[in-house]
């Protein structure tokens, strides 16, 4: 649906050049929700603004539904923008227009007649759940309601793509949830492709099918959201995931522990199996869960547990081996003293 090839955006000023986006290539598929995460200044906002040429890329290509946006005349570009909706962190509603007038403005931009405008605007407000606020002014609305109006405006001309520039960053967690739900609903009901940029990994976890992580203008990691959460490769990605799934064990507890502390990750298939109880039955070890959580990402379970295994060194090692054979990678955070000693003896 959206194909970005080797896109770069360089700002040149008297003070020198600043690279906003550095050689980014992305392929966003029809009907998916694609997230771009990064800290502020990572270039994600510039990237999304290049997707409807609000900023003209310095080099590279932006293909939207097979159309090369950079090659269009300003008139053709206006036409193309009508099928690319966009919402912003600051909502950007015209304060002197009522809610319904704000929505009909987008229709007017597309040359829709007065009667049709009224009809469609009402339908859109119904979709976002604001029919009763049609004749109010934006100043009378809450943040979440304003964002709903801007979603209605963005959807006015039946776009194929919706770009969300930090759309939930100015909202409280509860309102964020309701806006995300609405986006999800639009995505599944209208089959709309959604690109959203955010600094909140929670948002990605909640609704994105795939995501990319950006740092200093580059995409450092990209993939299926579940895979990214299950096995992040880049340090920055790991840090972002830690903001959502954090398993730091208090140091006191860590030092006091007598046994072997392991970090277990249950993904996909294994998440549903009773691995821990099997383990405790087959090996003479005691398991003590220090930390644990099962997250559901795209309806798939991702379980993370930190466990302390105590028992004879041989048994613990055996337990670890069988864990490794079912789970693959098992991270040992701390070896029990007895194991240290037995290893020392072996040497």
């Amino acid at each position: 649906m959206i194909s970005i090839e080797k896109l770069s955006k360089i700002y040149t000023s008297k003070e020198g050049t600043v690279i906003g986006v550095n050689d980014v290539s992305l392929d966003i598929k029809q009907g998916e929700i694609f997230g771009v995460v990064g800290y502020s200044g990572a270039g994600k906002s510039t990237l999304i603004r290049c997707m409807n040429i609000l900023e003209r890329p310095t080099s590279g290509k932006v293909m939207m539904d097979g159309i090369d946006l950079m090659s269009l005349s300003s008139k053709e570009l206006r036409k193309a923008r009508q099928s690319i909706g966009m919402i912003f962190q600051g909502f950007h509603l015209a304060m002197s227009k009522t809610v319904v007038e704000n929505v009909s403005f987008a229709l007017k931009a597309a040359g829709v007649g007065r009667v049709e405008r009224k009809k469609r605007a009402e339908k859109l407000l119904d979709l976002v759940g604001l029919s009763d606020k049609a004749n109010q002014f934006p100043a009378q609305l809450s943040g979440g309601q304003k964002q709903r109006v801007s979603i209605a405006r963005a959807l006015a001309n039946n776009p194929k793509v919706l770009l969300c520039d930090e759309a939930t960053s100015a909202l409280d967690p509860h309102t964020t949830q309701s806006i995300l739900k609405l986006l999800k609903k639009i995505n599944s009901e209208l089959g709309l492709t959604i690109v959203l940029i955010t600094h909140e990994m929670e948002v990605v976890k909640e609704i994105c099918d795939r995501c990319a992580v950006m740092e200093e203008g580059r995409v450092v990691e990209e993939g299926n959201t579940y895979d990214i959460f299950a096995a992040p490769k880049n340090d920055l990605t790991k840090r972002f995931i830690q903001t959502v799934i954090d398993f730091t064990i208090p140091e006191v507890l860590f030092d006091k522990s007598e046994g072997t502390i392991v970090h277990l990750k249950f993904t996909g298939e294994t998440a549903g199996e009773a691995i821990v109880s099997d383990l405790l039955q087959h090996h003479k070890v005691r398991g003590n869960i220090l930390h644990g959580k099962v997250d559901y990402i795209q309806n798939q379970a991702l379980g993370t547990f930190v466990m302390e295994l105590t028992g004879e060194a041989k048994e613990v090692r055996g337990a670890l081996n069988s864990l490794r054979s079912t789970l693959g990678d098992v991270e040992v955070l701390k070896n029990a003293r007895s194991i240290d000693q037995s290893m020392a003896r072996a040497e």
Partner: protein
Amino acid sequence: MLDQLINLWPELNKSFIETLIMVSIGLVVALIAGLPLGLLLFVTEKDLFLENKWIKSVTGVIVNLVRSVPFIILLVFLFPFTNLLLGTTTGPVAASVSLSVAAIPFYARIVESSARDIDRGVIEAAIACGASPWLIIKDIIFPEIKSGLISGLTITAISLIGYSAMAGAIGGGGIGDLAIRYGYYRYDNFVMFTTVILLIVMVQVVQYIGDLAAKSVKKG
């Protein structure tokens, strides 16, 4: 005192009408020419949808040029032009030529600065909707600054009342002319005070009406 006032009345009435003519013509021209000029200055600004460095700087320089000439000098400077246009340089209509020339850039700057107060994001959202520049000006910028435009017109009107006194002094007529002819040249304090009071009342009324109108168009 009443006798004095009755004696003065016909002259006062005539002057009042003359001032009214000068200010009204100046205002109408300011609105017709200054408003588009101000919008042009705004939309050609850097990072805006009709960004144009050349148009922006050329119009900017012209506007500053006119604004930097003291009004009394502009008045005399424009005599040949007024003469060419109307065949005369006296009377309120002739005076309104230079008043208009002064009012256009004055109002244009006010329009520009009120447009600058618009949240750029709103304009950006309109661009993202695929709206044409004309639609953005007409349907976003204009309604957003309507109340500011009226306040600006009030400020312009009051400045024009002041300027009209100067224009009057060199052949334009009006209240200012009356004040100078009787009050200043003839040391007639009564006329002086009467005209000053009249000017004060005029300014108050204009401000009051302007505020009322600005408030009534304000939405949201």
